[in-house]
């Protein structure tokens, strides 16, 4: 168990491309942190720098009290779960789980105890003598997790571990990972591009964009008060409506904003609402429906109950407090 601290962490590739810049994150002992962002935002690079698989060009990584910039991956006391699971195909599940312990000269009895314990936690006991290729995607995922937990490391690093699974299994495994982490209380750093996964798993979210941290906060903080237009558009599904303020000049209290944000669920149909939307398309989700349209040339989406009345044009209203205002050039929140 340990805390992890990233101090002004940066990475410049030999070609001069900056992948990550000035990242500062304090991860408390036992905390579950999710790094989330679009592809190419540097989140995997950041994780690999913590793991020791990428060298660090600026700043420092601390695991516990120790600066580990120059420490080999094996000696950082971390375990990693890879996107493609990275199970050793020529070894049985048991050998896969035991490999890290064997390399560390753990006594045989201790290895057996830990492997059996992990197998029981993850319910993979009956597969221990199979090869990974004889397992399904979900079972491989469990073995990959098992390989991490037998080591009893100071921290777990997850690199998009669920993205190779189908949608249903992903939701189930997500919950299992969450429960497992709560039970083991091991500090975890988890990378994903899926904002829903990020919201549901994280104690705190780190939203990354272009190698920089946009916002750090609990899922609800980030959802309720996104620090920038980027975060506002990235977190939440369906995405927040971001409208150029010039398209709706008549909205009160928005004169100084460049971009106005409002979540689809915060818009309501009211006869005297200030926004007139032309309906373009409707998506039925069962419990509710998504209505897509436009106002003043700006795209707009709203969520309505599935029994709501539809028309070619809708008048929309909102609560003033649900508006998010962002700066035109920098995208930073200004209210």
């Amino acid at each position: 168990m340990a805390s992890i601290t990233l101090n002004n962490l940066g990475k410049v590739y030999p070609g001069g491309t900056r992948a990550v810049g000035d990242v500062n994150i304090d991860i408390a002992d036992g905390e579950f942190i999710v790094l989330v962002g679009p592809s190419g935002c540097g989140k995997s690079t950041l994780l690999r720098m913590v793991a020791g698989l990428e060298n660090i060009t600026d700043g420092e990584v601390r695991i516990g009290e120790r600066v580990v910039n120059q420490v080999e991956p094996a000696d950082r006391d971390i375990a990693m779960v890879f996107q493609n699971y990275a199970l050793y195909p020529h070894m049985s599940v048991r050998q896969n789980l035991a490999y890290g312990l064997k390399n560390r000269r753990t006594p045989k009895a201790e290895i057996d105890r830990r492997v059996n314990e992990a197998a029981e936690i993850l319910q993979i006991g009956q597969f221990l003598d199979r090869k990974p290729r004889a397992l399904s995607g979900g079972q491989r995922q469990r073995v990959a997790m098992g390989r991490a937990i037998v080591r009893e490391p100071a921290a777990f690093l997850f690199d998009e571990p669920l993205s190779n699974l189908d949608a249903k299994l992903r939701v189930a495994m997500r919950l299992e990972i969450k429960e497992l982490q709560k039970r083991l209380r091991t500090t975890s750093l988890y990378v994903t591009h899926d904002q829903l996964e990020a919201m549901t798993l994280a104690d705190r979210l780190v939203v990354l964009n272009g190698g920089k941290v946009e916002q750090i906060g609990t899922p609800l903080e980030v959802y309720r008060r996104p620090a920038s237009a980027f975060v506002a558009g990235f977190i939440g599904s369906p995405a927040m409506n971001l409208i150029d303020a010039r398209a709706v000049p008549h909205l009160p209290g928005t004169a100084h904003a460049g971009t106005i944000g409002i979540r689809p669920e915060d818009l309501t149909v009211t006869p005297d609402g200030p926004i007139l939307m032309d309906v373009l398309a409707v998506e039925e989700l069962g419990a509710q429906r998504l209505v897509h349209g436009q106002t003043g040339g700006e795209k707009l989406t709203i969520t309505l109950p599935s029994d709501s009345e539809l028309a070619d044009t809708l008048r929309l209203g909102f609560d003033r407090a649900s508006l998010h205002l962002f700066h035109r050039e920098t995208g930073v929140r200004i209210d």
Partner: protein
Amino acid sequence: MKRTIFNNQLLPWLLLAPQLAITFIFFLWPAGQAIKQSFLREDAFGINSSFVGLANFRALLDSPEYMNSLQVTAVFAVLVTALSMGLSLLLAVAVDRMIRSTRLYTTLLVWPYAVAPAVAGILWWFIFNPTIGVMPYVLNVIGYDWNHISSKTDAMILVVVASAWKQISYNFLFFVAGLQAVPASLREAAAIDGAGPVRRFFDITFPLLSPTTFFLLVVNIVYAMFDTFGVIDATTEGGPAQATNIMVYKVYFDGFVGQNIGSSAAQSVVLMLLVVTLTVIQFRWVEKKVEY
């Protein structure tokens, strides 16, 4: 996989014809001739031939020279295969570890494959020539008196080195491709699992390379037994005192120089059977240990 359906029955045969013709003219027909000749004995002028049954084969078994050739071939094939595969794996691992100029080194290392066996033989013959060669001079400095014309060991070393050198490029290409097919994440996972570079290689990379290694083992043994004729002919001509007279060279020498067609044909049939047997054995037993 996309399957092409031919409506015309003739077209597929037509497309296969060139390859079939080459296989027939250069392999099946001569092989058939060799089998036929192995049961015949020709007179000294090649005018008459008579059927002698298995006499040619029986004569081979009684010939100490042929038994020696079998032994020499075994030693030669093992050494060539081990040396060329070992070195090429080493080179492939070195190139795989490089970040830059991988392609340049790969290209350079592939060149020897374009050299004809006889030319390679001549090249090494010059390098190791006791009178004018570079290597004997260097070896002389460190106190070794190199002479492959009189020393059996030196002669064997020369033909092994020359033959292995030519095959390194081929093996190297396959090993490089094989190494690149091993996912980087496996090696990273092993690194996190506490395995150092050497352990990672033997625990992870090498087992995953086994399909490539197995394929190359078969190819190299066949190469050492069949394709090294040119190297031997250009360097030692089987000498000194039969020390490098491998089976394929003896086939040529007894047949075309010694004009003993019957015996030569019998030898080539034995060689053919030997390679077929070895390949079957490898597929039967060694392949079971291969991890695909």
